[in-house]
């Protein structure tokens, strides 16, 4: 099991306190709740289920707070509890959107396709226009199309400022696995985002390649 990374000074956990001392726990919880709720919402695909997941994780974390090792970051520790509860009670959601794959997906797909379509690729925030026109719902839908193991790792990356080691600690896997899956997850996400842009008419649909072309 990978060790949880040491906490950053600003997020230092007041470890060794009794579990019933709510104040320090709630202070740390307040910081982690927005990303936790965001992850839970996309994992469950259902608002009441996401609320239940976050609530249960919060209570369990509080009950275990006294045993939190000195120097352990609160955020990854909390997410580890949340992901554990989700996995234990997780049931496949049935037929979802068509999953996107990463094979034959080039690196920098959005850059290459945007460049080819005459969309902005330079400036201070060159992808902003494309993402703004896509909107939050389509970005969410693109995340939804990632296979589950990639969706989880990608959500942890985007919803909080975790590094590879911290995500590895949450998921109990080597940092190299995180790196590899994150790379593939990003490629798949870019593919799904571009397809969403084509479907929405934001980007011109690319012609399918013909045999022998």
């Amino acid at each position, binding site marked *: 099991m990978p060790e949880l990374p040491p906490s950053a000074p600003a997020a230092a956990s007041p470890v060794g306190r009794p*579990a*019933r*001392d*709510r104040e320090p*726990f*709630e202070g740390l*919880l307040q910081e982690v*709740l*927005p*990303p936790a*709720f*965001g992850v839970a*919402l*996309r994992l469950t695909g259902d608002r009441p289920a996401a*609320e239940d997941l*976050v*609530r249960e994780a*919060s*209570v369990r974390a*509080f*009950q275990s707070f006294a045993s939190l090792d000195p120097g352990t970051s609160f955020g990854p520790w909390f997410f580890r509890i949340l992901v554990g509860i989700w996995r234990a009670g997780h049931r496949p959601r049935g037929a979802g959107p068509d999953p996107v794959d990463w094979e034959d997906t080039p*690196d*920098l797909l*959005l*850059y290459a396709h*945007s460049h080819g379509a005459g969309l902005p*690729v*330079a400036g201070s*925030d*060159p*992808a*902003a226009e*494309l*993402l*703004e026109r896509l*909107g*939050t719902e389509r*970005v*969410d839908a693109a*995340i939804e199309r990632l296979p589950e193991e990639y969706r989880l790792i990608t*959500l942890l990356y*985007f*919803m909080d400022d975790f*590094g*590879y080691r911290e995500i590895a600690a949450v998921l109990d896997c080597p940092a190299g696995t995180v*790196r590899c899956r*994150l*790379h593939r997850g*990003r490629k798949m*996400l*870019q593919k799904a985002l571009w397809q969403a842009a084509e479907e929405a008419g934001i980007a011109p649909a690319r012609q399918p390649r013909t045999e022998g072309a």
Partner: protein
Amino acid sequence: MNRFTCEEAFRRIDDYLDRELGPEETRLIEEHLAICASCLREFAYEQSVLDGVKRKLRRVMVPRALMARIQAELADAAEPDADAE
């Protein structure tokens, strides 16, 4: 190793943007970006995609009712010997 080629820089784009490279490789990437406008444009675009997706996904409000419910459950759990009685 004196300088990164475009290919060597490109292979490290994710690690660089995620600040997962060591100081020497970071320096070599930045030296390359200082002299290669094409790679600089690609790196900047990738950074913009990451920042944009983060902005979108992080636009989530925690419901006030959920906060209140959690606080109530924590208060219950903090009661001395709440389960024993």
